C-alpha cells in the first residue's frame, strides 16, 4: 500500500523534523523507522521544548552521586549507602481511567528506582483535582487514590506523603505525580541503563507484550480534547503482583554482577529503552522481534516496538551468564528471554524473519531537536496582581473563620486519603503522613531521611517566578522543621501547551524562580519530569512545578515533631508577618477569589531562617517546629495543637490594621516553634546572630486555642479566637469527608 504523503505528520513529526531525519540518515527512512523517530522525538520522550531550560538547574553538590540523565538521581548518605529518587507525572492516563492511570504511574516510577539496584523504600504522590462541585472530581479522586493504594500496598512500598489540592483549573485535567525513593548499598558500582560489551545478550524481562498504550507517548504530548474519550485503549492495566516479583528478582539479579545494564520500559516501550541503553553505552543493539514474548497474536513490529505494556524491563547480561539469569528470574516466576545482542556499530537494528526491518543510529533517535518557543507575559497577570485584597471586609467571627479554613479542602487533614495507603510496611516510618515531612529511618544506623512534595499552584499562577521559588523554599522548610538537612530535589513540571507563548513564559519564569531558590539554598536538582499539554479545551492548568525533596537526619535524636510537646512550653514565631493577602486560602475560601500578588519571598531571609532552625535543633533548643503555609499563622498554630494534643494561649501584636492578614496571611519564611522556658534566652541569642526575627507569641497550655490581638504590647487586647481544641480538630478532621459527601 503506498504511504500517504506527509504520513509522518500523523505520527507527530513536522516536515522539518522529517527532513532533518532524512538528511542525517542520508536516505529516506522507512515507515517503521519514521515511527520510531516520531515517538523518540515526541515531547514526552524528547523534551524538545524544555531541554534548554532544564540545563539551568544546578545539578551537583556534596550529596550528589548521580544527577539527571540516568533513570533516577542518587544521593550519598554516608556508610556506603545512597538514596535514589525520581518523580513522574501520569496526568493524562489518570484523567481517563483514574484507578489504572494512577496505579501504572506508581508502577512506572518504582521501576525507575529498582532499575538502579535500589530497593524502593517510599512512595509519595502529589495530586491536584478540580472543583468538588463537579461529581466527576469525586470519582477521579477516589479512583486515583485507590489506584495508588492498590499498587503501592501490593508491592510492599510504604506511601508516606504527598499533597492533595483542589483548584477549578484542574477539573478536566487532574495532575497525578508519583514520586518514589529507594535505598542502595553501593558497595558495588551503580546499576546503569547502558548497553555495553559487544556480543552481550539483550533480554526482555517481565510481562509479555500486548497492544497496551500504543501511542501512549504521543498521546501524552497532545492536548486533551473531548475526542480523547474515544482514544481509550491508550490506557494500560497495571499488575502490581508482577511488579513485586520483578522487584525481588531484579534486585537479586543485579547483586549477582551478571547484569551489565538494565532499564525499565516506560513511555515508548522497547523503542525508548533500547535506544537509550544503546545511546548511553555508545554501542548498538540488535533485536530479533520474533523472539519478543507477546500476549496477542499477529502483532506488527510497530506494535511490538511501541507497546507500553507494564511491568517489563530491558536488560544486558554478561555473555555466558544468560542461562543463570533466566533461571534466577524463573524462580521468581518472571520470564526472561534473550531477544538480541549488543553490537559495535551503535545502530538500533530490528530483525523480523531474518530480514532487517529498521536500522538507524541510536544516537540520532536519542537526539531530538531542541526548541526555544516564543515567550510572552500573560495578559491576565497585571489585572490579577493589581487586585487589592486589603479593602475587602474581614468577617467579625474569627473563630468561625478559622474553623472554615481548617475544614476547607486545601487545608483540611488528608487522612481519608493516606489512611488508604499502607504507610507503615517495611517498619521504618518514624514520621507518618500528617506532618511537614515524612521520615524514614535507616535500619542499623542512627540516620533517617525526610521527604516532602510541595507546590502552591495559585502562587505560581499569580507570579510564576515567586511561586516556583516559594515551592522550593517551602519544601526545604518542611524538611528543616523535621530536623533534616535538605539534600536534593526531584521536580515534576506540569504546564499547558508550551507552544503557546504565555504558557512558555510561565514555564521559563518558574524555572528561573526554582533555579534562584536552588542556588541560594544550595539544593541541586537530581532528577525530574516535564508534563506539558495539561489543558482542557484550550485552557491551561495553573503552572504547577512540583518540588519533591529529600533531606538527611544524621542522628535520629534530632528528629523534631511538628506538634506542641509539653504544657508550659513557650511558643515562638521565627520570621516576619507582612501585610500580604494575595493568593491566600483566606481569599479563596472566604471571598471566592484567586487573585492578588502572592506573598513575596526573600531567599536570603529564607536561607537564614532555615540555617537558624537546623542550628537550634542541633543545639537541642527546639521542642517542636511547624512551618507556616496555606492558612497562615492561625492554622499553623492550630495544627501544632492537634498534632501534640495540647492547647495554646497566644498573644499577637497587631501592627498592620488587618486581622485577616495577621492571622491568615501567608507570608513566607516563617516557622512556629515551641521551646522549654529555660531555652528561650539561648534561642533569642541564636536568632539574633542569624538575623532572624524571633517573637515570643504564647504558651502551650490547657485544651483550648485562645488568640489575643493588641496593637500595644502593654495592653492585653482583644480575644479574637477562642475554641476547644477538640472542636477545631473535629472540623480539621472532617473537612475532606464533608467535601466529598
Amino acid at each position: 500500500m503506498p504511504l500517504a504523503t506527509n504520513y509522518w505528520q500523523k505520527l507527530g513529526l513536522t516536515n522539518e523534523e522529517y527532513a532533518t531525519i532524512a538528511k542525517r540518515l542520508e536516505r529516506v527512512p522507512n515507515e517503521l523507522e519514521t515511527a520510531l523517530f516520531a515517538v523518540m522525538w515526541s515531547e514526552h520522550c524528547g523534551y524538545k521544548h524544555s531541554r534548554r531550560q532544564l540545563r539551568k538547574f544546578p545539578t551537583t553538590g556534596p550529596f550528589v552521586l548521580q544527577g539527571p540523565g540516568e533513570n533516577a538521581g542518587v544521593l550519598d548518605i554516608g556508610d556506603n549507602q545512597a538514596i535514589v529518587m525520581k518523580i513522574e507525572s501520569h496526568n493524562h492516563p489518570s484523567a481517563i481511567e483514574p484507578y489504572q492511570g494512577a496505579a501504572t504511574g506508581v508502577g512506572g516510577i518504582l521501576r525507575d528506582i529498582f532499575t538502579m539496584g535500589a530497593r524502593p523504600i517510599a512512595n509519595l504522590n502529589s495530586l491536584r483535582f478540580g472543583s468538588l462541585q463537579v461529581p466527576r472530581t469525586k470519582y477521579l479522586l477516589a479512583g486515583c487514590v485507590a489506584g495508588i493504594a492498590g499498587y503501592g500496598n501490593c508491592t510492599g512500598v510504604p506511601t508516606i506523603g504527598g499533597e492533595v489540592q483542589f483548584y477549578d483549573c484542574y477539573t478536566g485535567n487532574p495532575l497525578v505525580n508519583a514520586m518514589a525513593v529507594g535505598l542502595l548499598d553501593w558497595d558495588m558500582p551503580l546499576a546503569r541503563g547502558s548497553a555495553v560489551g559487544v556480543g552481550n545478550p539483550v533480554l526482555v524481562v517481565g510481562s509479555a507484550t500486548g497492544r497496551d498504550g500504543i501511542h501512549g507517548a504521543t498521546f501524552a504530548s497532545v492536548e486533551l480534547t473531548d475526542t480523547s474519550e474515544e482514544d481509550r485503549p491508550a490506557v494500560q492495566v497495571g499488575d502490581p503482583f508482577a511488579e513485586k516479583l520483578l522487584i525481588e528478582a531484579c534486585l537479586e539479579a543485579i547483586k549477582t554482577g551478571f547484569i551489565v545494564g538494565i532499564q525499565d520500559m516506560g513511555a515508548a516501550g522497547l523503542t525508548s529503552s533500547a535506544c537509550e541503553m544503546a545511546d548511553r553505552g555508545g554501542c548498538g543493539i540488535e533485536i530479533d522481534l520474533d523472539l519478543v514474548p507477546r500476549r496477542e497474536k499477529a502483532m506488527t513490529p510497530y506494535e511490538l516496538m511501541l507497546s507500553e505494556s507494564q511491568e517489563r524491563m530491558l536488560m544486558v547480561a554478561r555473555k555466558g551468564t544468560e542461562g543463570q539469569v533466566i533461571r534466577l528470574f524463573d524462580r521468581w516466576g518472571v520470564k526472561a528471554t534473550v531477544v538480541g545482542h549488543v553490537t559495535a556499530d551503535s545502530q538500533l537494528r530490528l530483525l523480523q524473519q531474518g530480514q532487517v526491518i529498521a536500522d538507524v543510529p541510536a544516537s540520532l533517535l536519542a537526539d531530538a531537536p531542541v526548541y526555544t518557543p516564543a515567550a510572552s507575559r500573560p495578559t491576565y497577570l497585571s489585572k490579577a496582581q493589581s487586585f487589592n485584597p486589603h479593602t475587602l471586609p474581614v468577617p467579625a467571627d474569627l473563630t468561625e473563620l478559622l474553623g472554615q479554613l481548617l475544614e476547607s479542602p486545601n487545608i483540611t487533614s488528608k487522612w481519608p486519603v493516606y489512611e488508604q495507603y499502607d504507610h507503615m510496611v517495611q517498619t521504618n516510618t518514624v514520621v507518618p503522613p500528617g506532618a511537614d515531612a515524612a521520615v524514614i529511618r535507616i535500619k542499623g544506623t542512627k540516620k533517617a531521611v525526610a521527604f516532602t512534595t510541595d507546590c502552591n499552584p495559585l502562587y505560581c499562577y499569580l507570579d510564576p517566578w515567586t511561586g516556583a521559588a516559594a515551592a522550593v523554599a517551602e519544601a526545604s522548610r518542611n524538611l528543616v522543621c523535621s530536623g533534616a538537612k535538605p539534600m536534593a530535589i526531584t521536580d515534576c513540571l506540569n504546564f499547558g501547551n508550551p507552544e503557546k507563548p504565555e504558557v512558555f513564559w510561565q514555564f521559563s519564569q518558574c524555572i528561573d524562580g526554582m533555579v534562584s531558590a536552588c542556588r541560594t539554598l544550595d539544593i541541586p536538582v537530581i532528577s525530574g519530569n516535564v508534563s506539558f499539554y495539561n489543558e482542557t479545551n484550550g485552557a491551561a492548568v495553573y503552572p504547577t512545578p512540583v518540588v519533591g525533596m529529600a533531606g538527611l537526619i544524621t542522628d535520629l535524636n534530632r528528629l523534631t515533631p511538628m506538634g506542641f510537646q509539653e504544657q508550659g512550653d513557650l511558643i515562638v514565631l521565627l520570621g516576619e508577618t507582612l501585610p500580604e493577602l494575595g493568593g491566600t486560602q483566606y481569599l479563596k475560601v472566604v471571598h471566592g477569589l484567586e487573585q492578588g500578588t502572592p506573598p513575596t519571598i526573600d531567599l536570603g531571609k529564607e536561607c537564614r531562617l532555615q540555617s537558624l532552625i537546623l542550628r537550634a535543633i542541633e543545639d537541642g533548643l527546639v521542642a517542636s517546629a511547624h512551618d507556616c503555609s496555606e492558612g497562615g499563622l492561625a492554622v499553623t498554630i492550630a495544627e501544632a495543637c492537634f498534632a501534640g494534643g495540647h492547647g495554646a494561649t497566644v498573644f499577637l501584636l497587631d501592627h498592620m490594621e488587618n486581622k485577616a492578614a495577621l492571622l491568615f496571611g501567608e507570608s513566607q519564611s516563617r516557622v512556629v516553634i515551641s521551646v522549654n522556658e529555660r531555652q528561650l534566652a539561648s534561642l533569642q541569642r541564636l536568632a539574633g546572630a542569624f538575623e532572624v526575627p524571633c517573637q515570643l507569641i504564647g504558651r502551650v497550655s490547657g485544651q483550648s486555642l485562645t488568640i489575643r490581638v493588641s496593637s500595644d504590647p502593654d495592653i492585653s487586647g482583644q480575644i479574637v479566637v477562642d475554641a476547644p481544641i477538640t472542636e477545631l480538630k473535629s472540623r480539621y478532621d472532617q473537612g475532606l469527608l464533608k467535601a466529598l459527601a
Partner: protein
Amino acid sequence: MKCGVVVFPGSNCDHDCLYALGQIPNATAAPVWHESTDLSGLDCVILPGGFSYGDYLRSGSLASHSPVMQAVRRFAASGGFVLGVCNGWQVLLEAGMLPGAMLPNRSLKFRCRYVTLRVDNVHTPFTTQYSEGQLIQLPIAHGEGNYWIDDAGLRRLQSNGQIVFTYADRDGTASSEANPNGSIANIAGICSPEGNILGMMPHPERAVESILGSVDGAAVFASVQAFTQCKSRVHHAIQGGTH
C-alpha cells in the same frame, strides 16, 4: 526459639517479621520459601502479611494451595505453633486451618492505622505475656479484614475461648465505632481449639520499637519464645528421665 517466616510470591511483611524477631531475645528466624516442604527444627511458623499471589481471586486463596502449606498443616497437626498475620490469617482461613472467611472491609477501602485491641485469651502460646482484658495499640493495614463466620461457628469460638483479640474502645468496649472493617463481633484474631494456630489482622511485627509508635506487639513474639523455652524444658526433663 527458631521461627520460619514463609515467603509466598507477593508476601511483603516477611522482612518485617524477620526483623521484629531479631529484636526478641533468644529468638532466631529464617525465611522459608513457598515451595519448601521441610519445616524440621522449627518451633514456630509465621505466615506474614502482604498480597500473596496478588490476592487475586480471593485474598490468600492461591497461596493456601502452595506446597509449603501442606507442610504447615502437618506441622500444626503435630503441635507446632503457627501464626498468620493479616494476609497470613487469610491464608489460614482459605486453607481451612481456622474457621470462617474474610470479606472486604465494610468501607470497601484499604485502611492503615493504629487500632485498640482487647486481649481476650491470654492462655494461648502467643499471648501469655499479656494480661486478661489488656488494651493494646497495634496497626492494621488491610482491605479485607471483615471476618465472617456463621452463628453456630461464632458460638463455638466464644465458648471455646478461641477469640483472642477484639477491636475495642479506649474503655474496652467492643463498640461498632471501634470496629475498623465490619468484622463479626469485632473479632480481630482467633486461634484453633488447641491454641497453637493464631490468625490476626493487626500487625504485631510493626509494633516492637517505641520509635515506630508502639511496643505492644512484642509480647506476641515474646510469648511464643517463653512458651517454647518452657516446652523444651519440659521436653528435656522427660527425655532426661528416660535416659
